[in-house]
């Protein structure tokens, strides 16, 4: 069998780079720190592709299924014989695929950032954080057990917090980073509860044990029940809550749009391609448990995903900030992935949804990173995020324009580009198992095409505003990643994904259902594009008319359906007033009061005993002898009466 122990280097290199740049970065030239960071990631990138090649092509299959390989496993904390936390590297089809995704996007973003961040203060800090993030994400992907995953899950949260708040002098960035951290942390509470219930029931943290068919997770599947659902189902729903927080699913999505305050390459890496799909990855990791012992949990996943995807798509149609449009589009696409996993069943053809979801995760990482990096290039050129201040940019930014167009066509599901395949497989799976969700997703596909092309026409065509200085194309370090990702977006769809990733790790072949799925989806896609073309190709009053005729919906969507306000109302008005105040009063008067009392007693005692420490040696000797005599008498006395 191939030895995979070198894979441990893939996450370790970035953490060493982080420590190195973090400790010595301020002494080197900014560019040097960028190059060191990028080189470190390049090595991880190469190692990941090598691992993928070795794993998929040079490793024997067992009963036709890809093996789950524990490449490295170290017992980290041994509490009791049974309860221990391990750290290690687990290789299976999805973790290997994620390795490829994470290192590819991260590598591209590193190269891009060398140009994009030029001249920013804290250049080396930026690269140090990027490396920290890459380490955390890779550790999460490779986790061998749910506890290790949780640790890295939190680390990912921290690095995301640091990167969103990168411009820490800007109040909005600070607020956004706090919001992201608190909301996801709240969701992680659910995750932790889920982990505790799950491991309590099954007696293991280990993914291989948990997901083996006939393993402890399946055996205790039924368990006791609560409110009509088994304990197992509840634990998995809690776990999904953590996933939903990280993946910005409704109603825990409110942090994602604000997170766009971070530098654009960060949005591309963390809030588009990698971290936000961690929730999908989590569900996929535990998929056998979900599918075999808690199918109700999967239903929840599917409906949450579907609703989020519709909800986000509607909002995306009204936003004016290009990064926010992309943020909502990310949320919507992750909804698709959740739907894919949610409607899937375990094994063979029925597992089409699972495969499609992973496939979409893969293609989405490429084209969404491309969209964000393209948006970064636009922002770099016009120094604004708002669509009103853009227009006619196709003349000034030719490379950005072409690559951006490719990405828009891809996300709209135009045939023979990558997302066409992945999205249609999700739709096929939905068509098989849940017609309602299928129609919702079909409609969302149309909306997607519409809002993406609204963005495209507004930015690259339409009327040119008055630019302060002529926009110019980005430097080479920024355009090369764009071109690479554009090529990936076009061709990633031709990977026979079912050969590599499937719910039971056994390769299978999938066909596109042209009649029921592909044709309708192409038609809605084209409709969306056409509508956008009519409304936004040239400046016209059509959008305003449209907005007026759907006034209620438009205003609601424009204000993100007032969810931020709702959350603020609940936290500030209700929780702060009716829960926090009484608790604070109790804390201030009862708890602090008794603490102050204890402190007063301590202090008074301290003054009283001062006399012992007189400095007189005779007295010290006296106390010494007295002490030993007293103890001697005490214990001899004890001895007589007790024994």
């Amino acid at each position: 069998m191939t030895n995979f122990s070198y894979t441990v280097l893939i996450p370790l290199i970035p953490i060493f780079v982080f420590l190195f740049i973090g400790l010595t970065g301020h002494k080197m030239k900014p560019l040097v720190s960028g190059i060191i960071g990028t080189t470190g990631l390049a090595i991880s990138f190469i190692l990941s592709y090598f691992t993928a090649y070795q794993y998929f092509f040079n490793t024997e299959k067992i009963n036709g299924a890809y093996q789950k390989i524990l490449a490295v496993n170290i017992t980290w904390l041994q509490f009791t014989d049974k309860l221990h936390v391990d750290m290690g590297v687990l290789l299976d089809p999805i973790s290997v695929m994620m390795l490829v995704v994470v290192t590819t996007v991260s590598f591209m973003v590193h190269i891009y950032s060398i140009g994009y961040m030029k001249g920013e203060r804290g250049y080396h800090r930026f690269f140090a954080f990027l490396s920290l993030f890459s380490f955390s994400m890779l550790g999460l992907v490779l986790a061998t057990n749910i506890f290790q995953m949780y640790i890295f899950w939190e680390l990912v949260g921290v690095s995301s917090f640091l990167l969103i708040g990168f411009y820490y002098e800007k109040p909005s960035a600070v607020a956004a980073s706090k919001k992201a951290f608190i909301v996801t942390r709240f969701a992680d509470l659910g995750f932790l509860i889920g982990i505790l219930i799950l491991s309590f029931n099954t007696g293991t943290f280990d993914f291989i044990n948990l997901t083996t068919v006939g393993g402890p997770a399946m055996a205790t599947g039924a368990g006791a029940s609560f409110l009509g659902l088994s304990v197992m189902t509840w634990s998995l729903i809690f776990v999904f809550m953590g996933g939903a927080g990280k993946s910005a699913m409704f109603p825990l999505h409110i942090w994602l749009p604000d997170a766009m305050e971070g530098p654009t390459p960060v949005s591309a890496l963390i809030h588009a391609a990698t971290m936000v799909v961690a929730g999908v990855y989590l569900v996929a990791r535990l998929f056998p448990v979900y599918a075999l012992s808690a199918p109700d949990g999967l239903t929840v996943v599917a409906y949450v995903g579907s609703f989020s995807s519709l909800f986000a798509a509607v909002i995306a149609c009204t936003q004016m900030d290009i990064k926010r449009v992309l943020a909502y589009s990310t949320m919507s696409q992750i909804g698709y992935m959740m739907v894919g996993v949610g409607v899937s069943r375990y094994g063979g053809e029925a597992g089409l949804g699972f495969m499609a979801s992973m496939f979409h995760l893969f293609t989405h990482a490429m084209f969404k990173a491309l969209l964000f990096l393209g948006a970064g290039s636009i922002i770099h050129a016009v120094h604004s995020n708002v669509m009103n201040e853009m227009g006619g940019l196709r003349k000034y930014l030719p490379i950005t324009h072409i690559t951006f167009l490719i990405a828009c066509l891809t996300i709209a599901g135009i045939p023979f580009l990558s997302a066409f395949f992945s999205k249609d497989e999700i739709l096929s799976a939905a068509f098989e198992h849940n017609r309602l969700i299928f129609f919702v997703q079909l409609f969302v596909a149309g909306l997607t095409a519409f809002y993406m092309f609204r963005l495209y026409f507004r930015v690259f065509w339409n009327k040119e505003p008055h630019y302060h200085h002529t926009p110019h194309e980005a430097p080479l370090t920024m355009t090369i990643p764009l071109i690479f990702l554009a090529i990936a977006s076009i061709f990633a769809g031709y990977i026979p994904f079912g050969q590599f990733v499937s719910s039971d790790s056994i390769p299978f072949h999938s066909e596109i259902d042209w009649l029921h799925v592909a044709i309708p989806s192409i038609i809605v896609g084209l409709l969306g594009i056409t509508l956008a073309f009519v409304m936004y190709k040239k400046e016209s009053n059509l959008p305003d008319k449209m907005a007026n005729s759907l006034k209620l919906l438009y205003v609601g969507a424009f204000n993100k359906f007032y969810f931020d306000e709702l959350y603020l109302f609940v936290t500030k008005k209700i929780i702060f007033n009716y829960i926090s105040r009484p608790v604070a009063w109790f804390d201030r008067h009862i708890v602090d009061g008794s603490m102050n009392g204890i402190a007063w007693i301590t202090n008074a005692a301290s003054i009283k005993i001062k006399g012992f420490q007189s400095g007189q040696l005779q007295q010290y000797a006296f106390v010494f002898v007295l002490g030993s005599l007293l103890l001697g008498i005490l214990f001899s006395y004890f001895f007589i009466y007790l024994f």
Partner: protein
Amino acid sequence: MNLDNFLLMRHELVLTIITLIVLIADLSIKEDKKQRIIPIAIFLFGVNAIIGFFPVVTGNLFGNMYKISDLQCTMKNVLNIGVFIILLQSVEWLKSTDNKLKISEFYLLIFSTLIGMQFMISAGSFLMLYLGLELATIPMAALAAYDKSRSTSAEAGVKLILSAAMSSAVLLLGITFIYGTTGSTYFDVVSLKFSNNPLQTLAFILFFSGMAFKISLVPFHLWTADVYEGSPVNVTSYLSVISKGASAFILIIVLFSVFNSISMIWKPLMYIISVLTMTIGNLFAIRQQNMKRFLAFSSIAQAGFILLGIIGANGVGMTSVIYFIFIYIFSNLGAFGVVSVIYYKTKKENMDDYDGLYLTNPKLSLVMMLALFSLAGIPPVAGFFGKFFLFTAAATSGYYWLVFIAVLNATISLYYYLLVVKAMFINKSDNPIAYFKTDAPAKAALIMCVVGIFFIGFLSVIYSYMASISYGI
């Protein structure tokens, strides 16, 4: 017995040879070049510390007078690491003009006491233990009085030697009773013949009082504050970390290997002493203004925590004590290192002098903060894990009230440790300590401490290793 057997005592032998080399070097170096001894001594001691880590040979020597096992070897290595850090910290001080002619004395004295402690750890008989104890104590008094010209230092020396003499007398009386009632001084013989009759109980109490003096447990602690305050800073850190750690090691060895049969006596004894030590040490520490005196009292309180592990009286307890002392060495030496660096640069050692230190010397303040956090036991630094395992040891043996009192005391200690942090980071000062560069050896020592504080808690191998050897007495 043949020559190979001497390998068993390589810690002591190598150190003795080094001591002799330093002595000869001192005689052959001219007066104005005495400073050359510093790198020689440090280098040689480093070699000694590394040799200590060579694979362990276990066995007995001199008819069970001397014993060595993995456990004892580890204890000696732990002490070696601590002494190495202290040697690095004291370079700047030894270079000062006052000490020009007596540099080698420092090394000779410190190495002699260390040899004494190592013999104590390896003792297989009370006679050996007593010899080691004297070897570890008498040169210590000379060390405390090292700054002869300073009256407080001389006072510290006198106080130490007088109170040590008395405690030795009491300890010797205890040993006499033990010999009188059992007819032997060998641990393995005594342990078989020891029972809980009143005379033997008294003998044990007297012996324990002598050991308690070394660890400065209440009520045998009164010498501590004056001696710590008067001695040179590096000697104080040696006293409070190495000497105390070694004595704690010896106390557990003796309690487990000799007095195991009367554990129903010493467990309640430990209970009382532990509560007294933690509480009184803390109550005194709260009011101290002088940093050395402050750390002296806080180290008394820390000794009370160590008893928690001993009282656990099981494998976990033993492991937790060694582990705690290992961490304590790094944390306390980190704190003392900062105090000594500041003292030798500015001659300031009061808490008020530290006001606003963060603005002028941020790195030193951060090291100090980490060291204090580790002493207080705040996660995730190593001190937390040390205390955690001590508490676990006591709790698994059912001493819940004791753990509760210990937790209360840990909270009190947090208060006074934070006073220092507050002074450095929050208090404003019109006349803060100006920025200065720390010399390289002291910097290296502080870096070692910081690394220790950060990583020992996370490297579970260390704890697992200690756990694996803890049953080896």
